[in-house]
């Protein structure tokens, strides 16, 4: 036990060892040390380091550790990519003049039942082998609900005489995300064509053409944003370091 205590005593700051080392070792030689004495010596060694460290010496390592930790976490999380497809609608002059901005929304609403139908989504899941891990533990209905959560559709105002809606799909694999977008937009365009041929009243009047634009810029994942993760860890590390310094200083002042 005395050996262990002397080993822990070597962990004290070197300046402190220079001043008190000999007499401290002499103290540790006397009496019968107990297990709690070993913890006491170790705890005080750590406290001495923290007390003697300057602000920079505490805060900087904490900040670096925080950034490294959150950076590592961001790499451990499987990334989510978002594919984007823009469906542009050309409207006739009458609609354009009326400045009616609900055409894109109404068109999307008209086409959604087909595109988001259980049959359509189940076919896409099957064809592209989506959610392989989830398929082991989830029912088909839950899978389809999961896929619906990963899909987002919103109208976008693009310019006079032209309207659009944006279809987004988030998935860990960027190429598959794009394929899903393509499948869905293709289903929507086919549905629009069929509705027009059948002169369906669901399709808003004034829509002349639907044109598809896909966005191939999927190099960066939407989540996790590693820069934000790293910066967050850095800030948390700085805050943690400052907290440690403040607590130590407060403790020292209280004792005085």
């Amino acid at each position, binding site marked *: 036990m005395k050996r262990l*205590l002397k080993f822990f005593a070597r962990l004290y700051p070197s300046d*402190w060892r220079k001043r*008190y080392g*000999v*007499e*401290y*070792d*002499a*103290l*540790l030689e*006397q*009496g019968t*040390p107990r297990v*709690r*004495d070993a*913890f*006491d*010596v*170790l*705890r*005080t*060694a750590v*406290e*001495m380091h923290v007390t003697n460290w300057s602000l920079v010496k505490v805060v900087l390592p904490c900040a670096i550790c925080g950034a490294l930790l959150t950076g590592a976490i961001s790499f451990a999380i499987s990334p989510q990519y978002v594919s984007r497809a823009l469906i542009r609608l050309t409207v006739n002059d009458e609609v354009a003049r009326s400045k009616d901005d609900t055409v894109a929304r109404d068109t999307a609403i008209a086409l959604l039942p087909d595109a988001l139908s259980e049959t359509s989504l189940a076919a896409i899941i099957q064809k592209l082998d989506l959610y392989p891990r989830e398929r082991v533990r989830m029912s088909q209905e839950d899978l389809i609900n999961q896929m619906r959560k990963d899909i987002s559709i919103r109208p976008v105002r693009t310019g006079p005489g032209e309207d659009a809606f944006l279809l987004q799909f988030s998935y860990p694999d960027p190429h598959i995300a794009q394929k899903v977008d393509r499948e869905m937009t293709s289903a929507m365009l086919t549905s629009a064509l069929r509705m027009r041929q059948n002169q369906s009243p669901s399709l808003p009047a004034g829509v002349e053409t639907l044109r598809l634009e896909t966005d191939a810029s999927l190099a960066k994942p939407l989540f996790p944003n590693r820069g934000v993760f790293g910066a967050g860890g850095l800030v948390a590390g700085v805050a943690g370091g400052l907290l440690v310094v403040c607590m130590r200083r407060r403790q*020292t002042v209280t*004792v*005085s």
Partner: protein
Amino acid sequence: MIMSDPTLLVLSSLAEGDKHGYAMMEDIERFAGVRLGPGTLYGAITRLEERGWIAPVASEDHRQPYTITGAGREHLRDQLTNLGRIVRTGRRRLENA
């Protein structure tokens, strides 16, 4: 400041006379019933010496004795006065309760 504050216990021990670390540990255990660990004791000694409340005494031995300084006595007196006031108040309130 609480009764088991190691700095107060060390000052109280040295108020009786100069002592080295191990003698302080034994004395404190005897009069306060508190067994200070070696790390806690030397943490307190370090802080007290930094504040000029105790000082090392010349010695041939590896075991360094310490003495309480004038400022240390004054600080101990202040602390004990405060503690005495708290003790008296607490006792009185207990008796009147």
